[in-house]
C-alpha cells in the first residue's frame, strides 16, 4: 500500500479521535454548567438517584461479596506459600477499598447504568422525543443529562462505600467460616490496617467513575445515529468508552493518591 495513503488514514483517525475528545469535553463542561443554572428538575434528579443508586445495590452487593470471598481464599492460599496466611484481613481490606471496590462498582455501573442511559436517550432521539422536548421549551441537557450525571456523582461513591463494606464482609465470612480465623481479631486487624487515605481514595474514585459512566451514557445517547442500529451502536460505544475511561482514570487516581 502507498505510504501516503497509510499516513492519510492514520492522520484521519487521529483527527477524528481528537474531534471526539473535543466534543466530549464540551459536552461535559456544558453538563457541569447546568448543575448551577436554573431551571432545575428535582423529580428527574430523584428518579435518577433511585435508578442509579438504589436499584444498583443488588448487583453491587453481589459482585462485592463474591469478590471479597474469592480474594480471601486467594490470599490465604498464596500467603501459605511463605507462611503469611495471617495477612488475609489486611490484604482483603486494602484490596477491596483501594482497588477492587471502586473498579468493580465502576464497571458494574458502566454495564448497568451507562448502557441503560445511552439506550434510553438514543431511543428518545430516534423517536424525536428530544426534538419534542426542545419544542416544549425544555433544554434536553438540563432535563435529561444534568440530573443523571449529578445523581451518579452523588450515588456512586455511596455504592462504592457499600461495595467496600460488603466485599470486606465477604472476605470475613470466608475467613472465619472456612479458614479458621478468629472473628474479633479479623475485624480488629481490618479496622487497624485501613487508613483514612484509603477510604477517601475509594470514595473519590467512586465519584469520578460515576461521572464518567453517566456522562458517557448521555453523550453517546445524544449522538446516536438513526434506527435500531444507531441505538445499538450508541449503547455499545458508551459502555466501551465508560469501561476504558474508568480503568484509565483508576490508574491516574491510584498514582495521585498512593505514589506521593
Amino acid at each position: 500500500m502507498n505510504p501516503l495513503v497509510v499516513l492519510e488514514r492514520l492522520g484521519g483517525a487521529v483527527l477524528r479521535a481528537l474531534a471526539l475528545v473535543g466534543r466530549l469535553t464540551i459536552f461535559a463542561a456544558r453538563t457541569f454548567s447546568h448543575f448551577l443554572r436554573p431551571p432545575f428538575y428535582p423529580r428527574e434528579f430523584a428518579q435518577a438517584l433511585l435508578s442509579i443508586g438504589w436499584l444498583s445495590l443488588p448487583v453491587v452487593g453481589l459482585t462485592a461479596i463474591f469478590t471479597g470471598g474469592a480474594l480471601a481464599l486467594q490470599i490465604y492460599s498464596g500467603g501459605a506459600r511463605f507462611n503469611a496466611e495471617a495477612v488475609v484481613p489486611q490484604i482483603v481490606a486494602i484490596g477491596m477499598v483501594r482497588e477492587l471496590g471502586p473498579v468493580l462498582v465502576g464497571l458494574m455501573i458502566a454495564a448497568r447504568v451507562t448502557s441503560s442511559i445511552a439506550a434510553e436517550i438514543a431511543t428518545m432521539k430516534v423517536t424525536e422525543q428530544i426534538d419534542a422536548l426542545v419544542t416544549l421549551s425544555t433544554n434536553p441537557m438540563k432535563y435529561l443529562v444534568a440530573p443523571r450525571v449529578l445523581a451518579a456523582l452523588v450515588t456512586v461513591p455511596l455504592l462504592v462505600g457499600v461495595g467496600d463494606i460488603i466485599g470486606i464482609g465477604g472476605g470475613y465470612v470466608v475467613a472465619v467460616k472456612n479458614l479458621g480465623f478468629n472473628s474479633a481479631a479479623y475485624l480488629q486487624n481490618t479496622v487497624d490496617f485501613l487508613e483514612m487515605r484509603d477510604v477517601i481514595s475509594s470514595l473519590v474514585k467512586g465519584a469520578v467513575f460515576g461521572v464518567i459512566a453517566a456522562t458517557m451514557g448521555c453523550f453517546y445517547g445524544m449522538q446516536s445515529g438513526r434506527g435500531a442500529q444507531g441505538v445499538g451502536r450508541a449503547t455499545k460505544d458508551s459502555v466501551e468508552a465508560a469501561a476504558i475511561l474508568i480503568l484509565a482514570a483508576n490508574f491516574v487516581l491510584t498514582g495521585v493518591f498512593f505514589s506521593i
Partner: protein
Amino acid sequence: MIRMENVQKAFGSNQVLRGMSLEIPKGSSLVIIGGSGTGKSVALKCILGLIQPDAGRILVDGQDATSGDRDAFLARFGMLFQGGALFDSLPVWQNVAFRLLRGSLKRPMDEAREIAIDKLRRVGLKPAVADLFPAELSGGMQKRVGLARAIAAEPEIIFFDEPTTGLDPIMSGVINDLIREIVVEMGATAMTITHDMTSVRAIADNVAMLHDGVIKWTGPVAQMDDSGDPYLDQFIHGRAQGPIEAVR
C-alpha cells in the same frame, strides 16, 4: 405571519434546501407537499430552530427566529410529530400537560391535570386514558395524544408533521377533521407536512409544493387542481411519469 426567505440547508454534500422562500399569513393553514426526502421536515425544523439553516432568513411576525428569547419564541408553537414523540416514561396526562408542569407556563398540578383531561376530551379521548402510558395506546390514540399536547398551552402557531402517516383511512379522516376544527377554533396559524392528498384537501387553505429544495408552486387549495404546474399535477395525481423522477 411566518416568512422564509431564501433558506438553504445542506447535510454534507447533500443540498436539501436550495433557497426556499415561503409566506404563511397569520391565522391561515398551509400544507407543504412533496416527495420523500425533499426537505419538508427540514424546513419545519429550521423554523423551530431544531436545525440551523446555512443561509437565508426566517421571520416570525417580522422578528428573526434565530435571535431573541428562545423560550418565549417556542412558547408560541405547538407541534405534532410524525410518530407522536410522546415521552415513554410519563403517563398520558403528564405528556399533554408537559409544558404546564414546568417552565414559564407552570401551573399547579391539579390544574394542569384538569387542562390535560380537557384537551384529551377535545381530541376524542376519555379521561381514563390520562393515566395510561404511551406504550399502552394504539397508533391513532398516540396521534390524538400528540395533538392534545400540541394544543395544551393554546399556541398561536401549530405544526403538524405527517399527521396521518401510518393510520387507517378512517382514523386519518378523524385526525384531519380534528386538525381542521382545532385550527379554526383556536384561530391558530398552521403548517402541515404531508403526502396524503386527502389531508391536503381537508386541512389546507393554501398549498405549497416543495421539490428539489425550492417551492415549485404555491397557491390556494381550490386552485391546486387547475394549476397547470407539471410537478404539482404529477404529484397530486400520483403519476409515475412526469418531471419528478421516480426511482423504480
